[in-house]
Every structure is written in structure tokens, then in C-alpha cells.
């Protein structure tokens, strides 16, 4: 058996830097706890060089001049953890999530993933090559991780946590390779750690050298278990985890964003992460959900800011699954231009609904249509020009009510390739006046003889009707009217054929459409 372990040191900081890679060159520390007792729980290497240590209070950490202090946000860590799992699932189907399997019970969400790589050498090459590829894949996800390969899960995990970079431990050399690691990596209880330190045991090698019987007499079975771990001989069965179906990213901004351009910059990073995860799982997205938390402006008081806290939610459904982050970004940008958030944005949540990627077998003799991604972008741009509900395809409703239809999103690719053969009859087309034009009508012997439209008289040279059209009397949208087809003749213009009606409920005349 062969196992690989991915471990991300200072996971809360890495989860933050994954979305904001610019901060990687800065001193960053993450705080946790309830105010005012906020303490540092993670810091990057630069922050540690600057004197930041774990357990420092916020006040102490702020003494460091260029430190970036951020609050811990579990949503962000969960997203990073899911990304880590996706990386592992790209190599092996048997992946264990060890994030909650700490002996001391400390919550360390999602910093370690173990995968079974037995028999994968034919696919990915020797273990060293696989480990390097694994580290590269994790790095592409924006996380700096240690990768170790060993013959058992514990040895792989301890090597990943103890050695930076890529480590490959050959069979039978576990005790020797792990010997230099500090004893704290075994996560003994406080009492046991104190005892071991009192004995002068500070690394794995020291613990492995203690006689088993003597250790058992003094520390019991727990001591023997720790010694086995220090030897790198402890075996256990891997507990595979189900691949995550959530593709979500979240970010809390240090300063609220008021302009669309910086917001688009952040969205771009989040979309890249989501698309990288989707690609690693050979998936695409058919829906995007964007949620923005809007806060008050900086010049407002804290109470006012809290009062003006609200959510701006947008949802985008695509006719075909897509996985191009640039297309997604453009769609989001176009939508935010049309529907801008009405305040500064403090938090951003972005979720994608996974779907199998689109597969299309194009035929030589099939007429081509617009590319779905390009069509979506074009439609988004047109919606920005003409308005949301004015772009799409019309759908006739099953009613006798005149001129009733519904606008639907334009998804020509969802209707199959071949349209049905329709029974068609050539008739004169109508052009609808929206809204209908109110008219005054002179009637002689029950037939309209003259029509006044916006004060201009039109002689009726021919008329047909009336046709009674009524219905919906059991609803609020009842209609009852008598329709006429009229030929109108005004001065110095050609005759115009119109359809007019008399609304019986209001006794008013309207010109509804023209024949053309």
C-alpha cells in the first residue's frame, strides 16, 4: 500500500491568501476568538519573521507596523478545504479527509488530506513524480502545501506535517526519516507531553528508542500507540470521503468596495478558483449564484452601518454548462452594470451549480447556430441595452385573451436541433400598437364612419365587424370587446388597415393593431 498526504501549513492564512494572492508578499495574520479577546491563530512566514507569534492578542499583533490582521472566516476555509479535496480526487478516488481526526480534539478544519495512491504508478508515474504533480496541482489552486508519500497513512501525514515541500519515504526507512520530527506532531495529551519532555524525549527518534515494556508500564497503551507512530509502523484503514458537490467561494473584504472595477477584480479571482475546481473534476457549471453583503458607508456610524446591512442576490442560469471563467466574469460584470448593488460590498459569496460538461457532435450538414457562450454574452449585453424583460423569445399562452404572451429566456439550444414541422397558413400580419391607441369614433347605423386619432380625423372607407371577444369574467383580467377591421383614409396618405375595438367595460374605443 502507498499513501500520499497533502498538508497545508497555516491553513487559515493560506485560505485567505488563496483568494487574495497579492497579500502573499505581505505580513498576514489571522485572528480568532470573541472580541475583545482576539488572538492570533495563524500567521505566514513573513509575519513570523516580523515577530508575530501564535496566541498573541490583537493589541500585541498591531504593534507590528505593516501587519495585515484578518478575522478567521470558516466559509473561506471550507472553500479552501473543498479545493484541496478536489485536487486529491483528481488523482485518486480513495481520499480521506482527516481534518477532524485530531486526537486532542482541536478544531483544525481541512488542512490535511490523505489519498490512497496504490497502483497509480502506471497512470502518474513513480511516487516521487506523482507527489510533485500533486504539489503543483495544489499550488495552482492557490495553496502552498507539503506533500509526502509513505507506506502508511500516519507516516505520510507526519512527514507532510513535519517536512516542507515534497517528501517520499521508502518502505522500511520510516523510523529513520521521521526520527528528527518533534514529538508534538504526535499530538500527545498535555500531561503526556510534559512527562516526555521531563524524560528528555523531544523527537520521534527518542520515543522510538524507549523499551516497549518500560514505556507500557509507565504510559500504558497510549504510550505504545505513540511509539508505533514514531516508528512509522502504525497501520490503519483509510476512510474514503465522498467528493464534494459544493463549489462555493467566499471572501470578506477588509475595506468595503464601492466600485464595480475592483469588485470585478475580486470576482475574477473567485471565478478562477471555482473554474479550476470544476475543471479538476471534469465538470462545468450551469448556474451561478452571487450574493453580496452590503454595508453602510464609512462615514456612517457603526449602528447605522449595521442597520443598512442587506443582501444583494443575483442568479444566472445558463442554457448549456460552461467552465470558462472569463465568460462568467463578463456575464457577472454586465449584470452588475445593469443591476448594481446599492451600497458598499463587504462580503462576497459565489456558488456554482455543477453539471456534466457540454458535449456536442456537430454534423457537416446541420445548420450552425451561435456558440452558446458567445450567445449568452451577447444576450447579456443586449439586456443591458434594451432591458431585462425585453430580450428573449415569446411564448403564447393558452388563452383566448387578445395579445397575451410571455417573454422567456432565449435558449435555442435546449429545444433540440430540428424544429417541428408546423401547419402554416399565409395571412396578413398584424403590427401591434403597445399600448393601444385611444380613439374617438363616429358611428352611423352601428358602423364606424370616422375615427379621430390624437385629434386627427380619418375617414372609414371600409369596415368589417363587429366580432365579439370576451372571456376571463371569472378573473380580474376579464375582457369584453367588439372588434372591427377598418380601412382608414386620412388626407394625403395611403389607406391604412387597422383593427380597432370598443372596450365594453369602459365604452372606449382603441386602435389595437395595423395590418401589414
Amino acid at each position, binding site marked *: 500500500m502507498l499513501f500520499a498526504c497533502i498538508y497545508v501549513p497555516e491553513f487559515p492564512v493560506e485560505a485567505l491568501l488563496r483568494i487574495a494572492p497579492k497579500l502573499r508578499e505581505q505580513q498576514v495574520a489571522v485572528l480568532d476568538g470573541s472580541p475583545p479577546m482576539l488572538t492570533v491563530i495563524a500567521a505566514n512566514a513573513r509575519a513570523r519573521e516580523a515577530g508575530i507569534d501564535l496566541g498573541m492578542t490583537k493589541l500585541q499583533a498591531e504593534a507590528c507596523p505593516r501587519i495585515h490582521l484578518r478575522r478567521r472566516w470558516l466559509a473561506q476555509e471550507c472553500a479552501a478545504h473543498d479545493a484541496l479535496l478536489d485536487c486529491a480526487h483528481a488523482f485518486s478516488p480513495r481520499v480521506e479527509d482527516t481534518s477532524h481526526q485530531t486526537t486532542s480534539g482541536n478544531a483544525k478544519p481541512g488542512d490535511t488530506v490523505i489519498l490512497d495512491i496504490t497502483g497509480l504508478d502506471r497512470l502518474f508515474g513513480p511516487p516521487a513524480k506523482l507527489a510533485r504533480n500533486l504539489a503543483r496541482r495544489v499550488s495552482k489552486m492557490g495553496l502552498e502545501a507539503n506533500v509526502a508519500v509513505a507506506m502508511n497513512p500516519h507516516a505520510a501525514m507526519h512527514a507532510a506535517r513535519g517536512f516542507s515541500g515534497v517528501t517520499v519515504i521508502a518502505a522500511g526507512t520510516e523510523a529513520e526519516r521521521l526520527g528528527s520530527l518533534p514529538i508534538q506532531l504526535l499530538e500527545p495529551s498535555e500531561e503526556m507531553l510534559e512527562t516526555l519532555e521531563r524524560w528528555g524525549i523531544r523527537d520521534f527518534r527518542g520515543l522510538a528508542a524507549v523499551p516497549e515494556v518500560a514505556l507500557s508500564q509507565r504510559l500504558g497503551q497510549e504510550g505504545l500507540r505513540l511509539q508505533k507512530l514514531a516508528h512509522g509502523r502504525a497501520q490503519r484503514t483509510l476512510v474514503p470521503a465522498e467528493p464534494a458537490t459544493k463549489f462555493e467561494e467566499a471572501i470578506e473584504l477588509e475595506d468595503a468596495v464601492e466600485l464595480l472595477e475592483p469588485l470585478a477584480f475580486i470576482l475574477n479571482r473567485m471565478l478562477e478558483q471555482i473554474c479550476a475546481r470544476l475543471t479538476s473534476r471534469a465538470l462545468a457549471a450551469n448556474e451561478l449564484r452571487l450574493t453580496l453583503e452590503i454595508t453602510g458607508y464609512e462615514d456612517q456610524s457603526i449602528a447605522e452601518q449595521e442597520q443598512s446591512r442587506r443582501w444583494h442576490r443575483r442568479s444566472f442560469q445558463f442554457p448549456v454548462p460552461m467552465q470558462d471563467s472569463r465568460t462568467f466574469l463578463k456575464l457577472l460584470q454586465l449584470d452588475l452594470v*445593469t*443591476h448594481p448593488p446599492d451600497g458598499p460590498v463587504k462580503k462576497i459569496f459565489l456558488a456554482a451549480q455543477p453539471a456534466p460538461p457540454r458535449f456536442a457532435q456537430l454534423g457537416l450538414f*446541420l*445548420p*450552425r*447556430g*451561435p456558440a452558446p457562450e*458567445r*450567445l449568452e454574452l*451577447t444576450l447579456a449585453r*443586449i439586456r443591458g*441595452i*434594451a432591458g*431585462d*424583460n*425585453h430580450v*428573449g*423569445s*415569446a411564448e*403564447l399562452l393558452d388563452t383566448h385573451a*387578445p*395579445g397575451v*404572451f*410571455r*417573454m422567456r*429566456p*432565449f435558449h*435555442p439550444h435546449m429545444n433540440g436541433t430540428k*424544429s417541428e414541422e408546423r401547419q*402554416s*397558413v*399565409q*395571412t*396578413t*400580419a*398584424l403590427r*401591434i400598437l*403597445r*399600448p393601444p*391607441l385611444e380613439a374617438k369614433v363616429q358611428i352611423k*347605423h*352601428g358602423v364606424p364612419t370616422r375615427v379621430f*386619432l390624437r385629434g*386627427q380625423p*380619418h375617414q372609414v372607407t371600409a369596415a*368589417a*365587424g*363587429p*366580432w*365579439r371577444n*370576451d372571456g376571463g369574467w371569472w378573473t*380580474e383580467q376579464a375582457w369584453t370587446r*367588439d372588434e372591427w377591421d377598418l380601412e382608414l383614409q386620412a388626407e394625403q*396618405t*395611403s*389607406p*391604412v388597415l387597422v383593427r380597432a375595438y370598443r*372596450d365594453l367595460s369602459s365604452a372606449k374605443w382603441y386602435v389595437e393593431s395595423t*395590418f*401589414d
Partner: protein
Amino acid sequence: MNTTAAELRSRLETALEHRIPRALTPPQRSLPERMPTGIASVDALTGGVPLGCLTEICGPTSSGRTSVLHSLLAECMRRDEICALVDASDAFDPQSAANVGVDLARLLWVRCGKKSGDRVIGSSCEGKSSLHREKSFAHPVFKSPDHPITRSPDSSLEQALKTTDLLLQAGGFGLVVLDLADISIASTRRIPLTTWFRFRRAVENTSTALLIVEQQPHAKSCAALVMDLAAQQASWSEAPDQNETIGDTHFGNNVSPSFCVTGQGVAIPFEKLLASSFEMPQRWNTPRARLLNTVHVYLQVARSRGIEGRGKFPARSEVVIPSPRQRSRGIAVPIQAVSVQ
């Protein structure tokens, strides 16, 4: 030594033949493929709408422009193409189009002129109640063509032009229609020629046909085909006596009666007779019920490039289009050419 230009060109071409074939002879432009309009008389005259070119259909109101457009859309749908209609004045009637055979699901309809974001996509339902609340505005049909007050402000024209630009750039549509039929001539005349040139270039060498529906042609040399339509006459059928069916009177006994006149002289659709007869108001006392039968229009091809065998233009044809009431009675009258001059 006297050498003509033709000889000189021939010698140069021969010398360069191995490097640049036909170096000085401009390539012959192949005739564009044509898409039939679905109206025999129009196809006989024009050969159909050229693909990869700009076509104009012009004419005043009630001249049959929209009927030709719907027929063309239906024909394009039969070829399984996806079409787009940029409706500058929001006048498209989905019911009319569906009757002709237009697959509405494959028709992208952009309704310009009214920009609002208050409704959610898919929930826009236009009924009578909502229509009557909207503010009425002027319509060029009932104004002189150059009246400054038009139905659609210039913004809707700008929207339509921008939208058409985007659709042409996106590509992949079989037919893109820019409907400016209700935009005043004064406004359409202000469209710069460069816009038409850009449209022509955008569809060139593609299989997309660009169709402009308007009152007067404006694209000038950018248009490959210009169809000028004019209303000729409308024929009306009459019900001479009360209590007689129109079908019996005008179309013989072979056609089952689908329309009748009651004792009060009110014409009622046959299928609604039982439901509506008791609701007839007594104040209506129409002596003669009439029916808009057909619309006659004249088609004139003002400009056409690449139609073989037709050197003389303009050519004219009369097109007969039955009215929707005819269709509701179940009588299909085929469109036919009455005369070709």
C-alpha cells in the same frame, strides 16, 4: 512599340503566374446563396433573399412588409436556422408569426424602446389590464411621415442599431431582422451610411441574411436587394342577408359554414356561437356584416445584385395576402402572383 494595357497585363500575369496566379485580375465575385421567402410570387421576382448580404423591404403601413417578413422567418425556421428580430418599435405580433409557422422558441425577439428592469425574466405577461395603464404615445402611422413626434424616440433607434451590431458580431444566426417599419423617415434618414456599411461588412462572407424593414430605403449601395412594397387594395366580402352564413354565400356549399349572422345582424365567430349568443347587446344593429378578405400589394424590386436573367428593373408583381379572419374561418388562400410586368 505600341502595347495595349490588356496585352501588358497579360504578359505580366504570365510572368508572375508561377508565383501569383491571376495577379492583376480581380477575383470574380460568386453569386450569393439565396433563401426563398416562402411567397411564390416574391421568389419568382427576386429569387429569394441573398445570404451574407443586406436586404431592404420598404413600404408604407399596410403594404405587406410584415407579412413578407413573417413568411421569410418561417422559411428560415424550416431550414432549422436561428433567427433574431430587433424590433425598434415593439410592434411584433407573436400570434401572427406563429400562425405563419414561425417557431417562436427559435426566434430571439429584442423589444427596443422601453427599458425597464422592474419585471423578472419569464414573468412578463401582457394582458389588457396592464396595457391600458400604460401611457399612450404618438404613432407615425397616424402622423405625416416626417412628423417630429414619432412613436419611438431616437433612443429606441439607437438601441436597435446597437443590438443589431452585437447580433451580427456574435454570428451564427440564419436571419437577423432590423424592424424600423414604425420609425419615422426623418429618424431613419439620420442613420449614417457608415452604419449600413458596417452591417454589410459584418454579414459579408457569412451565411447570415440581414433584413431591414423600413418605410423608405436608406442603405443605398450597401443593400444587395431592395423590395419596395405598396398597398394596392383590400377586398372585403359581405353578408347580404340576415340569418345567412357567409360561407354559404361567398364560398359555396363545399366549405363548411364557420361564421354566421344572428337576427340582430351581429357577426359572431361560429365556435363561440353557443357561448356568446345570449350576451349579444341589443344596441348593436349592424345591417351588413363584412369580412376583410384579402390584401393586395404591389412588389417592386428597386435594386438587386446577382439575380441571373433579370437585367431590367424595376420589376413588379402583385401579391395577394388573405386576412387573419379568413384563416380563422379555415379557408386557406394561397399567395400567388397575379401579374408580372
